[in-house]
């Protein structure tokens, strides 16, 4: 499941995806707990998941929610947030 946002050419930066987020979480939580944590963060952020995947802006909102969690999960949320914000800012700037 991937969002349909483009790679930013000059920076060679692809937008982060839900798959990226789940893989990051699975490394510290295991696959099942990662999926449950992600679903909970989506729900708490008011983001509805679809087959098309989340947009980078939606992903940034979920990451912001995730960053409030305790322990490594919060650190992962912050990291994901930096990646999503970087893509959004550079995309907005026409890079």
């Amino acid at each position: 499941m991937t969002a349909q946002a483009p790679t930013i050419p000059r920076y060679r930066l692809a937008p982060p995806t839900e798959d990226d987020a789940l893989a990051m979480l699975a490394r510290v939580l295991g696959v099942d707990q990662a999926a449950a944590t992600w679903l909970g963060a989506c729900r708490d952020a008011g983001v509805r998941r679809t087959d098309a995947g989340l947009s980078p802006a939606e992903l940034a909102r979920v990451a912001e929610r995730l960053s409030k969690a305790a322990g490594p999960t919060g650190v992962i949320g912050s990291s994901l947030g930096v990646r999503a914000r970087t893509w959004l800012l550079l995309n907005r700037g026409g890079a």
Partner: protein
Amino acid sequence: MVDPKKSVDLGDTARLEEIAELDLLGPEVDDILQATAEEAAERLRLPMSLVSVVTDQAQYFAAHHGLTGWMREARGTPTEWSFCANAVRSGEPFVVEDAATHPLVRENPLVTEDGIRCYAGIPLVTVRGHILGTLCVIGTEARSFSEDEMDTLRTLADRAVERIEERRGGGEQS
């Protein structure tokens, strides 16, 4: 106790737990480390400085001085662009005198698109031996760094770690 001389796995769970325990990714951390970042830039006569926290996915700017544009707003970058990640992985200072010719960074977008040309970063090592990130200075013109300047940066990095350790709560400092 982690051996800081071993190559660091940026995604190591124990390291991420250390970053979480020290609560380094909150906005209030900037107030605690800002003065140190500012002093580093001033004493080395460079326009930018950071206290960075590096994970396997992103570097987060816990404190910064002189940043503008998207980097200031994003408050970090993807790890693959992070100069600081080199110092964290190796546990050694990382110095770039001319980014345009340095083999590790010359194709980095922060160099080709954002104009970074010089960098010096000192790893921030906790009492438990985890390397969190760096205190670093950044410039837009090529330059060298003297031993005295690197000593200054080390002293300020030690101060940053002291301030960070004060966040641990239990008084674990050695």
